[in-house]
């Protein structure tokens, strides 16, 4: 395998790992705010790494440019969506879970 191919595989694997972390986080974390963390960030990095792998794999193609645009828009929209969710939760009066609360209680 060429170095590029190695890089593609590595990026895709690490991206998948962070995607997995996001999924695990959503299951394990206690409340809506902490879950928004997992959903917005690990997910962003996971998707970004995977798309980077795709961009590398496509090489000089026009699709690479499109992939780069995709990256930029993910960086812009993902945090905005997470912010919208968290803000909606706050407006609903949902108290954030703190370390003092019972495990498993929401």
């Amino acid at each position: 395998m060429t170095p590029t191919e190695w890089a593609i595989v590595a990026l895709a694997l690490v991206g998948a790992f962070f995607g997995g972390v996001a999924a695990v986080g959503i299951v394990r974390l206690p409340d809506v705010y902490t879950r928004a963390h997992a959903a917005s960030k690990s997910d962003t990095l996971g998707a970004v790494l995977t798309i980077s792998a795709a961009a590398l794999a496509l090489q000089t193609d026009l699709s690479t440019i499109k992939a780069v645009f995709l990256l930029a828009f993910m960086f812009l929209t993902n945090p905005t969506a997470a912010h919208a969710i968290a803000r909606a939760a706050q407006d609903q009066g949902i108290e954030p879970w703190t370390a003092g609360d019972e495990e498993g209680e929401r």
Partner: protein
Amino acid sequence: MPLDDSVTVRNTVAYAVEQAETTARDSQQQVALHLVVVASTRAVDPEAQAELGDAKSLLDRAEVWVEEDLGADPPTNLDVTFEITGADRYLFSPGDYADAILAYAADNDIGQVVLDPEFNPGGTTPMLRPLEVELARDDVTVVTAPVERPARSTALARAATLPKYGTVFGISYLFYLLLSTYKPLDFLTGAITAAIVSGLLAPIAFSRQPSLTRIPKQLARLAIYVPYLIKEIAVANVQIAYVVLHPSLPIDPKIVKFEAAVWGDAPVTTLANSITLTPGTLTVSVSERAFDIHSLTADVRGDLFEGGLERAVRFVFYGREAAAIPSPRERGQGEDEDAGSSGDPEVPADG
């Protein structure tokens, strides 16, 4: 009365003077009329000189108007004062302006504020409460001058200028061409599409005049910022992965508040999004400059108040000097990480 260069400012001054004159003639007490320009930028800001110059010329004009309105026989117990206020801080939203006006009113023992109906400092963004509402906090009477004003089309559409059209056209054309197949027809269709886009969007695309010197500088600094941000994201993501995968889930979530030393829509949005992107911190709500941030662990709270991101965002939008403003921790915030009582609510943005 706060002054601004609006279409109805002349009539509002006339109304205020008339009110003051009537009061002065009816009572034996001393009546004071203050005409005040509220400056939005701090006096140290590079743009402040131009703004203060405008303010001075507006006050000069107001002085002439007042003389005109009072005529040859002004009441002896009427004092008229011309003043600039608010130059010691940045004002960003209607709430900030209300603060400045109320502070001035309190300092000078003023009981009534006359508002120009066209006085819309800090914008009329639907997200923000209008100035009238903000002013009602204090027990100062607020009167909007009953003057006729020309009907406006929409508050959203600002006057679109050639640079705005040019910038929007250029960006959309470039975007179109990047995604095209580079056939001659694409250049034509791209031009048509970009013309339609700029025609529709140029009036709402910018809040300020795009400047050929400022934007490339900001873009260049943005190019430095993005790798920094990506590095931060990568490092912090590893930390979060550790926390999430750790068997005992060592989290200590808490909402903290902090007052960011950034001003304006774009910098605040950038900072809010950057904070959300950096794992462990999530912007829950932003009101003017006050951020409510949900943080996952005590570590990331520490990082947040170290202010690295905030500093970087200031660097992007205002340049190197602004990056030297002290970090939130040095400004006395974040020591007590108790949600709701962190720091001084009126932290002055002193450099």
